[in-house]
């Protein structure tokens, strides 16, 4: 069992003040092997927070990350899965699934992770898996004014990837949805 936290678009302090306490309680050190962050932290303190949860943190640069050392995109291999990571403001039009699919093709990955829209998504298309962990703080985006705070946890075991989609709707009761994805030989 390898746990991968997929998280991003915190926008602290510009659009939000903190990650919801209910989420922070879950994200304890020592349980998560890898973190894939879609970007827009925006400051060092959030990076430090992620480092406190896991020692293997991968961050790509969001449009409001002023840290130029974060790459524009990244490919991370976990077990049998090649995972692509990009913030998504570079992909035009924003939130367009075909445009994101083109990035997936270019990076040649099984799982494509992107953010920016703050729209929580996890879907399979043409035998590949697409994930958007939304905004963990529920921050404003021009495309989603009041998104539900969310993050995604992936459990990777050989050729199976189980995603747990955590969200915090306004009534305060945390929701968890489980979606399974099997890496097939089927190509587009």
């Amino acid at each position, binding site marked *: 069992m390898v746990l991968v936290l997929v998280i991003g678009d915190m926008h*602290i*302090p*510009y*659009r*939000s*003040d*903190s990650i919801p*306490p209910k989420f922070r309680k879950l994200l304890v050190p020592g349980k998560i092997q890898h973190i894939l962050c879609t970007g827009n932290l925006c*400051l*060092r*303190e959030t990076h430090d927070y992620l480092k406190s949860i896991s020692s293997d943190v991968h961050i790509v640069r969001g*449009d*409001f990350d*002023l840290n*130029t050392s974060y790459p*524009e995109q990244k490919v991370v291999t976990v077990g049998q899965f090649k995972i692509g990571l990009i913030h998504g*403001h*570079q*992909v*035009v*039009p*924003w939130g*367009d699934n*075909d*445009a994101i699919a*083109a990035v997936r*093709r*270019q990076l*040649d990955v099984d799982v494509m992770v992107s953010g920016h829209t703050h729209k929580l998504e996890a879907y399979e298309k*043409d035998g590949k898996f697409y994930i958007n962990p939304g905004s963990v703080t529920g921050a*404003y985006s*021009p*495309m989603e*004014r009041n998104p539900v705070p969310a993050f995604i946890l992936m459990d990777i075991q050989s050729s199976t990837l189980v995603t747990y989609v955590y969200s915090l709707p306004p009534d305060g009761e945390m929701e968890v949805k489980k979606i399974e994805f099997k890496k097939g030989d089927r*190509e*587009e």
Partner: protein
Amino acid sequence: AVVSSGINAEYGGTNLERLSRLEGVTVERYEKQILPAVLKQLVNCKDSIAQEYLMDCIIQVFPDEFHLRTLENTFLDTCCQPQSQVNVRNIIISIIGRLSNFAQADPSNIPEDIKLFDIFSVKVTQIIQSRTEMPPEDILVLQSALIKLALNVYPAETGYVNQVLQNTLNIFQTEEGRAKGCSNELGKLLRVPVDHYQDILTVLELDAYPKLFSFLDLNTRKDLCVYIAEHIIETGTLIYSHDQVDLLLTMIECLVADAPDQPSNQIEDPEDFECEQALVGRLVHQMTSQVPDQQFLILNTCKKHLIAGGDKRIQFTLPSLIFRAIHLCRVYHDLREEDEKWEKKVTKILQYINSLLSALVKAEYWDLSLRLYLQASLVCDAMGISNAETVGYEFMSHAFAIYEEEVSDSKAQLIAISLIVATFERTINFSEENHEPLRSQCFRAGSKLLKKPDQCRAVSLCSHLYWSGKNREGAGEPLRNATKVLECLKKAVRISNQCMEPTVQVQLFVELLNKYIYFLGTGCEEVSESVLSQLVGKIHEDMPGLESGDITKQIVKHFETTLRFIESRHQLTF
């Protein structure tokens, strides 16, 4: 008789205990005989430890009702005597604590006519005033005990807490030097109301509270302000009126701006400073009202305070204000049917946003302000009114100006122009009169980038503007200008041809092939088979000549995946 022989304190204490358990020890007897006798011995005893022990015994051993009865006139009066060497601090804290517990156990335990707080408040003030050598820590520990009494026994009386604070203030203000060295204890004292009233708004009502801040040294003051700010965020307290916001920001002034007692040569650790200012930026989100007009007042109050923070702070604090203002525009837009003045209000907010952006530009935060101008132009676009369109165009122009004049690093340039194009593509309400020049600007800027690959990518990105871009005249329908799309892509191919590096060239061709396919997939039938076949042919031609290596492998794989995709999605084989 037993007590009057008491020189050995322990002996006295044991005897007191036995005494208290004797039958016939009534409160009258205690008041008239026992207590005075003990106190007389106490006052004459030189050993302060013994004194304290004895007083403690009296407190512990005799019932609370006895203490209540003798409190004002006998017990505290004795403590007040300046001649007595009794260490009053711990004794008073002990009796306050004891009676406080008694009162909390059952409020009816305290008779109506015994105003516990008033009694203690008056006597403690007397004691402090009469003992001029009492160190500030002792003063503050006593005041702290009083505050806790007020908070625990008279929770509704916020005035009591304020009274204690006011008394403390009076003592420090009127008597020179009494406050010297009190920072630590005072800092602790000031945390007590914050911890107790989970809601900072009650603390804001205590007018004596902030006035005590001036007696804290800068570091203690800052720590306290950080404590308060973090408390507000952690408890999720909302500051919902502009008056409260004003009070709060004035109170935590030393975080928000340079303090007058700040040493000018102090070098702050940049990481710590960033953390501290990010806290202020985060706090802004707690200053919010559900009433839009009130929220605007809050935004103005915040601006007044935060601008005073100066250039080094505004990069961390103003963006939060800008986003709250953006949010407010949207709220007014939502309520446009109900508020006939909504357009004027939105215009004012946009002016407000502009003023904050100007401040950031003046402080030369180029990357940040470019991005914020773009976000601001999106909200202008969402308003759908011509006033907002004008402002939105202004904002886009500012973004371009920063891009052209201040972004000098070529990598940063590509990133910036891509962001401008991507943002502009999302707008829907620019009239063609404004949309056209912006489209052209994007194209021109993209084609003027220094490096050919960057030019190619930027120009191909512009193709989207002509396809899915929308102007006001289209009334929600995308432009779908296939001719211009193909023109852009053709230009991009031409630029790729001019690239020196074969690997880069082929990489660009494959990317452009994908762009063509994207448009074909979204209904651009003008992407003909021959255009595709030509490009595919070129790639096939050039690929074998590429130097072997990882990058070439990736390009080859990309190409193959693309061809397979074209086959399965469009039933075209090359």
